[in-house]
């Protein structure tokens, strides 16, 4: 086990606490850089979605994970980013300009949402953000001169410094990866700055933060703005990746998916946003794979346990019928969410930490290390 002896305040806020971090993240980055040459084009395309979802996840993590303000309206911010890109692109505005413009506009809208959210907590905040998302969705559908209404907008191929960047090519993947990495590094820097400390203080106790001199309103609005801006940037990439956007893509369903990203990944660390995004994007191809192969596998298992060919055939047919039933995906989604909340509240990254600690402390690991305290006394209404 490695012991870190901190002798200086600077040690506490280092980006890389020890050399192990540099090595492991270096290897990861190297793998991601050669990925387009190794993996199939389908997987690279999925990786692009992972990058976009992870960027949104990081944005949402700042707000929900670190400032403690729940939001079920992030699809609206994504939509604003995407539509800004699509709109400005019609006037031949270069990519870097509309990319930043989308971020700025979404950030401004985020700050606007942040103001009413100042007085709201818990469930009231959730419903306010849902309402906001509905209103944005309706505006997108009705403001036809700008958004082309329900018919949606085509997004032209991205062009960067005169070069066309097709949405399936490796360059687009590198662009998304670069945005994700820069967002993560930027967020890490933000979180070790006074601003980030103030966010965490607000999350842990608003009253305590206020009594320590943190301007709670200011930092809440800041958190909303930053989170929205990052989501808006992801929205630009999202629009380019899909090459077509319409209002019904940015529904509550998408906002819930973003929350699932950080919930399944783990809400206490940025790792969670990335792991959650990988999980959410990759579950689709995985389920498709299961749907095709599971009947054969189950029938094979039945056959090895001595079932004759007719029974095996029946089992094959039954499993295939269940696996191809409509809406099975929704049920699996639901079960996964419930199981994570019940059994793995710290998410995938929490599981990773547990496994790591298990081997570090072997054989002295105690399960209670990660046990959360249940609170039956406090009422969330009395705040």
């Amino acid at each position: 086990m490695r012991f870190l002896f901190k002798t200086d305040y600077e040690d506490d806020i280092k980006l890389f606490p020890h050399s192990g971090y540099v090595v492991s993240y270096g290897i990861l980055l190297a793998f991601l850089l050669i990925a387009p040459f190794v993996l199939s084009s389908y997987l690279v395309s999925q990786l692009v979605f992972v990058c976009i979802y992870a960027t949104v996840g990081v944005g949402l993590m700042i707000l929900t994970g670190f400032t403690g303000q729940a939001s079920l309206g992030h699809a609206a911010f994504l939509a604003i980013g995407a539509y800004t890109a699509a709109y400005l692109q019609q006037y031949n505005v270069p990519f870097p300009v509309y990319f930043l413009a989308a971020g700025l506009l979404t950030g401004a809208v985020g700050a606007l949402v942040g103001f009413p959210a100042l007085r709201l907590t818990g469930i009231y905040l959730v419903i306010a953000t849902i309402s906001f998302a509905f209103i944005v969705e309706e505006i997108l559908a009705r403001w036809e001169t700008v958004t082309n209404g329900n018919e949606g907008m085509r997004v032209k191929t991205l062009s960067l410094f005169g070069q066309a960047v097709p949405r399936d090519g490796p360059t687009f993947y590198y662009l998304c990866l670069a945005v994700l990495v820069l967002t993560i590094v930027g967020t890490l820097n933000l979180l070790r700055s006074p601003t980030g400390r103030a966010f965490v203080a607000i999350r842990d106790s608003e009253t305590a933060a206020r009594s320590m001199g943190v301007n709670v309103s200011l930092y809440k609005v800041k958190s909303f703005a930053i989170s929205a801006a990052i989501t808006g940037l992801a929205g630009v990439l999202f629009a380019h990746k899909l090459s077509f956007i319409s209002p019904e893509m940015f529904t509550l369903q998408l906002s819930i998916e973003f929350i699932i990203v950080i919930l399944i990944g783990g809400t206490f660390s940025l790792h969670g946003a990335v792991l959650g995004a990988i999980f959410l994007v990759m579950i689709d191809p995985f389920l498709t794979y299961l749907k095709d192969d599971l009947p054969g596998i189950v029938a094979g298992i039945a056959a090895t346990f001595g079932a004759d060919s007719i029974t095996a055939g029946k089992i094959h047919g039954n499993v295939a019928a269940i696996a191809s039933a409509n809406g099975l995906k929704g049920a699996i989604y639901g079960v996964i969410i419930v199981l994570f909340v019940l059994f793995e509240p710290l998410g995938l990254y929490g599981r990773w930490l547990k496994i790591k600690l298990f081997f570090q402390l072997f054989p002295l690991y105690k399960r209670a290390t990660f046990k959360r305290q249940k609170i039956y006394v406090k009422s969330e209404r009395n705040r």
Partner: protein
Amino acid sequence: MLDFVQQLVSGIALGCVYGLIALGFVLVYKATEVVNFAQGDLMMLGGFFAFTFIGMLGLNYWLGFAGAVIAMAAFGMLAERVVVRPILGYPQFSIIMATIGLGYFLRSVVGMIWGTDDFKIETPFSQGVLRIGSLVLAYDKLSVIAATIILCALLYLFFNRTTLGTAMRASSENMLAAYYMGIPVKRVVSIVWAISAAVATAAGVLLAPITFIHSNVGLVLGLKAFPAAVLGGFGSIPGAVVGGVLIGVIESMAGFYLPQGWKDVAPYIVLLVVLLLKPEGLFGVHMRKKV
């Protein structure tokens, strides 16, 4: 003027359905501080149970209604036992996510069992209208309004006059203190879920003649009932119904008098304005945290 009254009545009827779903939200929230995002889906499931009993098995309407309510009460207890009880006492957000997951699950399972078509339940109120002068009021809408008033009165009496109701209010204030006072908190919570699922079923069955039931109806109506509960102030039973009726009337008026598109947004705009002016809702009680 006639149009206005007509719209008002249909708005109130729709609002009563929202109010009934919102009542389910409020009941669960009052007793356990859990916000049940799957409330609309419980309503949908209740509607499908009733459809099975009445439409497929051919039972009498009232018998089928009662059967659906009892079955759903049992289901509510089961859902509480499996999904909610293990995470009671954890931050509110985890519980919200768990109920969202439950909603996903219910929607797709119902879709798999009953299919994704629209279904209709024949009720004694389906046909027939009440004529007052030149005003025409359909029985199905009036039945919703009447049932809402009766249910509200019953629930109000239950919460304020019975021992069990008082126990529920106590455990909502402070579970631990209630437990020390000898209140079987777990059983109380379980009963609350049963009641809320039963109320949701009543909403679902009453709704069936007005709009068809299909596997997504819970999501659509739940998202309208949610602003209703918030508008009235989460945790207030009269507030939920008043909020529901307000949302219903606003929606119906906006659909009639305002250009297309306002119908769906108007309730949310009103909600945001109310939250801005009065963050705890119309009937909510604002409590300060003591440090």
